């Protein structure tokens, strides 16, 4: 949130989360989750450079407010699906950084036992239903868990994250249609970071605002500032309430930006340095930290101490991953069938 606006709210002694039932601890927890994701991924990039991590590794840096804001609005019995850019949502859901880092290292102690890798984090216990590698492949699965909870008479909801470029796939539209037709309690959160790999949104998507893709299905829809964790929390909370009370789907477009390349081998020539720098000015962690300080919920000292604590936990995660064993060779043929 812009500094001037924060100042105004402060003078009116009115934090904008006043009506949201968010305790100071809950706000600090959101900040901590965002910073943990940031530090975890900065370190992952370094370890990738050292050859400790292989394959594709898509960083969430810059987009932390979307995952944390949205997932903080959920209950434990709700479900989460996302694409291959999945480290952030897993951590937002409470996955420890140790099994997360170990998965990147391809170790037996990873959240998918080293079988999945960066793109395929899973944590069934936390209802983190996975990261998926095929663009547009997972939204119907999210509608499927929503179908199941409704079928079972539960009031759980499902959240599905996906990139804006995925919204061009046919199966995405098939899913929206059925979600609306069958009134499924699912919330589609399009993370619009404006690029699918090197292709800017206007070169890939016809039409106007992205959230309006849901208009043809008469689905509730809105755009939200995805660089703002509180705004995201608010929008998702409202969508979750609708889903729980009336079993209706919602499509949210979270406008955000990835500060790093698409994956680790991206020269980034498709966007200007200025553009990246401009977005960095609304870094979701920096702005939220400043707001928490402005309202006396955090101090700079507390933030520094928290940062040091997080960096230490990430260091421990790297050591843990390093010292963990590789998956045993007898894992090779395990789990092909249940």
């Amino acid at each position, binding site marked *: 949130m812009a500094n001037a606006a924060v100042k105004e709210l402060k003078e009116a002694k009115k934090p904008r989360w006043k009506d949201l039932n968010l305790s100071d601890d809950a706000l600090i927890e959101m900040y901590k989750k965002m910073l943990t994701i940031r530090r975890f991924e900065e370190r992952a990039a370094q370890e990738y450079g050292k050859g400790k991590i292989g394959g594709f590794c898509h960083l969430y840096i810059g987009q932390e407010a979307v995952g944390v804001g949205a997932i903080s609005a959920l209950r434990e019995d709700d479900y989460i699906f996302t694409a291959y850019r999945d480290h952030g949502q897993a951590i937002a859901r409470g996955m420890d950084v140790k099994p997360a880092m170990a998965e990147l290292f*391809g170790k037996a102690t990873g959240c998918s036992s*080293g079988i999945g890798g960066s793109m395929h984090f899973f944590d069934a216990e936390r209802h983190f239903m996975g990261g998926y590698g095929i663009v547009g492949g997972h939204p119907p699965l999210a509608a499927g868990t929503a179908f199941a909870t409704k079928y079972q008479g539960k009031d759980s909801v499902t959240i599905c994250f996906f990139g804006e470029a995925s919204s061009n796939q046919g199966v995405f539209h098939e899913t929206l249609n059925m979600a609306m037709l069958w009134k499924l309690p699912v919330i589609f959160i399009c993370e619009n970071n404006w690029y699918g790999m090197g*292709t800017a949104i206007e070169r*890939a998507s016809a039409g106007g605002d992205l959230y309006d893709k849901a208009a043809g299905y008469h689905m509730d829809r809105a755009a939200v500032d995805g660089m703002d964790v509180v705004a995201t929390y608010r929008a998702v909370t409202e969508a979750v309430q609708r889903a729980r009370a009336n079993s209706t789907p919602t499509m949210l477009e979270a406008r955000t930006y990835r500060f790093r390349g698409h994956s680790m081998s991206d020269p980034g020539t498709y966007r200007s340095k200025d553009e990246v720098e401009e977005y960095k000015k609304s870094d979701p962690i920096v702005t939220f930290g400043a707001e928490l300080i402005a309202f006396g919920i955090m101090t700079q000292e507390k933030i520094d101490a928290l940062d040091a604590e997080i960096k230490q936990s990430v260091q421990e995660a790297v050591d843990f991953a390093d010292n963990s064993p*590789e998956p045993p*060779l007898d*894992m090779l043929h395990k789990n092909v069938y249940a």
Partner: protein
Amino acid sequence: MATLQIREALNQAMCEEMERDQNVFIMGEEVAQYNGAYKVTQGMLKKFGDKRVIDTPITEAGFAGIGIGAAMVGLRPIVEMMTWNFAILAFDQIMNNAAKLHYMSAGQFKIPIVFRGPNGPAHMLGAQHSQALESMLAHVPGLIVMTPSNPYDAKGLMKSAIRSDNPVIFLESELMYGQKGEVPDEEYLIPIGKGDVKRAGADVTIIAWTKMVAVALQAADELAKEGISAEVIDPRTIRPLDEDLILESVRKTNRCVIVEDSWPFASVGTEIAHRIHTKAFDDLDAPVEKINAADIPMPYANNLEQEALPNAAKVVAAVKKVLYR
């Protein structure tokens, strides 16, 4: 002779054919402004403009179908699939439309289209990005399936693919794009359905394509040290298959090992082994052996991935088995 990478050889083939025939164009994800996810289309946008070098949204089924429709009325599209893992979304278009239109219309429509991109396991990409799909594609009557193992073959096969009046599936490899080899300056085409002897030998025939040719050649080097002379055959076109070349070699060596990095069940190797067993039964001194990738979705961890993939040692062991050594 020029020394080219496979990506450059493919690029040359496509550029030459686009210069030769205005109906040839290319489309796919990131092929134009980004110059290709694996740089196979480097410089093509600059050379031919955005009418003929076209970036698509991430909509594999859609642009595959648009290509097929354009081919029905005389264009000759090259459709790049960023990888064949993603082309799975387009299998309906490829199998139900491209492969069948000529037949269903009793020959009224031709579908001169090339679907090309990398296929097979790369390195540590995990289950959804590491699959060799040639047997699924070669299963379909109406499709031609090609897969080059060096720059010379890549260029010659690609030119034939573009000039073919049939849908061609062209399977490349992420890990091989940088591989170098000599390519003649003058024009040449490699006929569809013509295999190649990559190394002559007398004691055993090893059949392999794409990435597995290098593995077979490495195994042949190892075997030579032990006095075993292996012949390495690369069919280059999987469908139609150069059966004559394969049978001729097996009739000479009396033993055969097939190497593929696809799954073993109903693989291309299964078909080749069947043909050898039925057509050269009396010439065989041992049943044909097959080395495949493990029969599992590909795991991410490096140690498991290495264990799952064919390698020279596994090929050497299979050769010794058919030689009863």
